[in-house]
């Protein structure tokens, strides 16, 4: 069992086989998150056809922290977050150069199994996208596709995920109802619970609150603070107050380049780059 389709000796597959020895049954948990940084982005260039959307991005996202990415529209922050679980593979003509290392493995290696990657790197989208199924089936969906069919185990995962997403009390009596009947905020938290159900190490959030009202937004922010005990969170946000409120690290992007990254407090109180200062003080963007 290996996440690579072909067995070849590389640094990455060494890490894989190390994981294999300790957990033989599990072919999906080959990422080794024992290091300090969950994600290391190194010299990443990204092109949509001829257009270069990301230019030489270098950054590290520390484990069990919230990293916020801010910047004006079209600066490449959403593009970057989509490269972290390779969702941009869906975009035609998209080309990535450089290295993104997650859990010790370069995820742009051709032999990486996307299923394993995305199981470990969950994603929450800008618009809540629950499936047209019941609440229960939505959350059980992920585990089911990964071969868990025992009712008891599924029940437990559903309960655990809903508790983790702090909506167990709201939803425990309506598990059989359609998820589409929930409010927007509930739908988004359900999507978070759904992502948690497959046990990811990293959670990517692409403007998770931009379609929600302030109260729902507050709930999701609270939830993020709780979740960072278990998962590493990377969040794109348009809302600078949000970044300042909940993130530990903040990265500022402009026109496809990362202008600066640092501890959130430092970035917001004493930005080193004049462009950053102009943006966070609201002079453009």
């Amino acid at each position, binding site marked *: 069992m290996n996440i690579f389709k072909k067995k070849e000796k590389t640094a990455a597959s060494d890490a894989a086989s190390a994981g294999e020895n300790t957990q033989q049954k599990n072919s*999906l948990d080959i990422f080794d998150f024992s290091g300090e940084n969950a994600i290391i982005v190194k010299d990443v260039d990204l092109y949509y056809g001829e257009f270069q959307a990301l230019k030489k991005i270098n950054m590290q996202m520390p484990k069990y922290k919230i990293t916020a990415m801010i910047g004006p529209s079209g600066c490449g922050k959403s593009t970057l977050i989509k490269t972290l679980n390779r969702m941009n593979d869906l975009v035609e003509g998209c080309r990535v150069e450089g290295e993104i290392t997650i859990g010790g493995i370069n995820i742009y290696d051709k032999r990486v199994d996307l299923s394993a990657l995305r199981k470990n790197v969950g994603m929450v989208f800008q618009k809540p996208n629950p499936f047209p199924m019941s609440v229960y089936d939505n959350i059980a969906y992920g585990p089911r*596709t*990964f071969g868990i069919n025992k*009712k008891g185990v599924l029940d437990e995962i559903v309960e655990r995920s809903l508790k983790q997403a702090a909506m167990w009390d709201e939803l425990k009596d309506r598990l059989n109802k359609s998820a589409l009947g929930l409010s927007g905020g509930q739908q988004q938290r359900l999507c978070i619970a759904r992502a948690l159900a497959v046990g990811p190490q990293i959670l990517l959030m692409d403007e998770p609150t931009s379609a929600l009202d302030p109260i729902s937004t507050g709930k999701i922010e609270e939830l993020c603070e709780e979740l960072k005990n278990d998962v590493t969170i990377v969040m794109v946000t348009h809302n600078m107050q949000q970044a300042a409120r909940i993130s530990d690290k903040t990265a500022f992007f402009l026109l496809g380049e990362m202008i600066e990254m640092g501890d959130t407090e430092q970035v917001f109180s004493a930005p080193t780059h004049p462009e950053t200062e102009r943006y966070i003080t609201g002079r453009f963007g």
Partner: protein
Amino acid sequence: MTKVSSTKVKDVSAKYLFIVCACLSIFAVFGIIIYILAASIPAFREVGFFQFLFGTKWQFNTDTYGVLAMLCATLVVTILAVILGGIIGVFTAVFMVFWCPDKLHIRYRGKNKSMQNFVAWMNSWLSKINLRTIFDQIIKLLAGIPSVIYGYFGIIVLVQGGLVNMDPYHRGFGVLATCIVLSIMIIPTITSLTKNALEAVPAQYFEGALAMGNTKAQAVFRVVFPAARSGIISALILGIGRAVGETMAVQMVAGGSVNFPTGFFIPIRPLTVNINMEMGEVVPGSLHESALMATGFVLLVLVLIITLSVNLVPKEFKGKRGEKVLHGTSGEVVYRKKGLIPEILKYFGMVCAAIVAIALFAVILFICINGIPNLSWGFLFGGDNYEGHSLAPAFLTTFYIIVFTLIIALPLGIGAAIFLNEYAKPGSKFVKIIRTFIDTLAGVPSIVFGLFGYLLFAQIFGKNVFAGAFTMVLVILPTIIRSTEEALRAVPMELREASYGLGASKIRTIFKVVLPSAFPGIATATVLSVGRIISESAALIYTAGMMAVASSSVSSAIDPTNMGSTLTVFMYSFFAEGLAYEEAYATAFVLLIITFVLNLIVYFIQRQVKKKR
């Protein structure tokens, strides 16, 4: 002051005019039901309703009428055809939407220079072709081919080419042949409707599933497919409706004798075939005629039930019944890579698409190979059929019927669409009722239209081109209303607001702003209607008439108060009279070309519209 009030009067009267247009579908459906029921009452009275429905013998020389065997034949053949055609059609659609490559590319790793050049040349050509579009267009083309052609294909290729040898009695006709032909005929309908349903599923569902570690096949079959469920079920139900109502093709391969469908090679006579086989020799006003009308009535009721059941399909998932109580057990949670079944289904989809491609290709090739050698100038535009054969009279009749039908149907259909989209409150009960009736009218089998036209229009005008045209108005009305409505809906609200903002009245806004922007859609509707008229046969035989080949001449066809055969009916005559198979092939080819050109026009109109947006 007077000016204002006069525009107001115009506005209000226009509104009522549009309402009348919209209600026409309701009148038409009720008219059809009442007329055919009234005509079948003598048979129900003489034979007895239950005796008619459950009797197993049908002999018109002894006035013994029972439709049970034919009803069973219809049901069995339809169910088999929908299982076969439904599975293949649905999976073909899945393949087309998710896996069909846009471009083909040949890879060549050899060292042969001339071969390399050849491959490069091929690739430069292939890169210009969009495979998905072509597949899509071919499926649309096949949806538009007259059913007579499918029947012909069924007899020559399917029955005589293969099934004869498998049949212990060496006939080849019967249940199997019918259900294969029917499934080929309904595949285009099912595929294109399923395709629409799949494409309407929000991309977020697909992305959501992928982001959770699903493979593409898992995401497609576990999320997108269930999400499109209601649309797929509707597609299948419409397929059933089409199969139940199909007449001409079925008549050619069913065998025609009244038997219960107890085996694959038992010759059968479905309801539609029963009507069509005997209507030609019926004595007007006889019990026999009434019994055939009663057969039509049974068929109509069957189709109404099927069409109306589309409305019972829930549009979205509303949740399951009861409450869910969790009984968690602390078992070990082990995530494993899974997903063999979706992968298998994906390859099954490819196989289905290949089958469809082959079948479609076979139909087209069959027509071309047999048709082209028999074409000649004299045959196409020669003149009379007293000696030799010529399509000229049929061209003339077809042209007349198209023109007359469109002159009547276009204003009515556009008016109805205007009411539904511009005046009616969206979602109101009235609109829902009208929509249901439009859908019902669209589902009425063409042979039932034929019977209705025979009872009403052929009595008024006599059997001639006008009676045919009036019947065709009812046939194409739903198409025109729906496509026009779609086009109107696509006109942005801002345009209307801008016009109102300048003080224009509603009626002026509609005619000067909305309709012109919806023109491409209306043009599409018109072209589609032309296609429908050309491919129609069963609705025309009893209304416009079916001329004996030898007696059809230009001098007779030039007068629309005479009987006349359209191209499709004419092709059927060639076949039915059994004398001129070459000519039938050639006519089939001409019909194919016409259908192809019409589809091409629709394609270019729609592409033009897409470019503008």
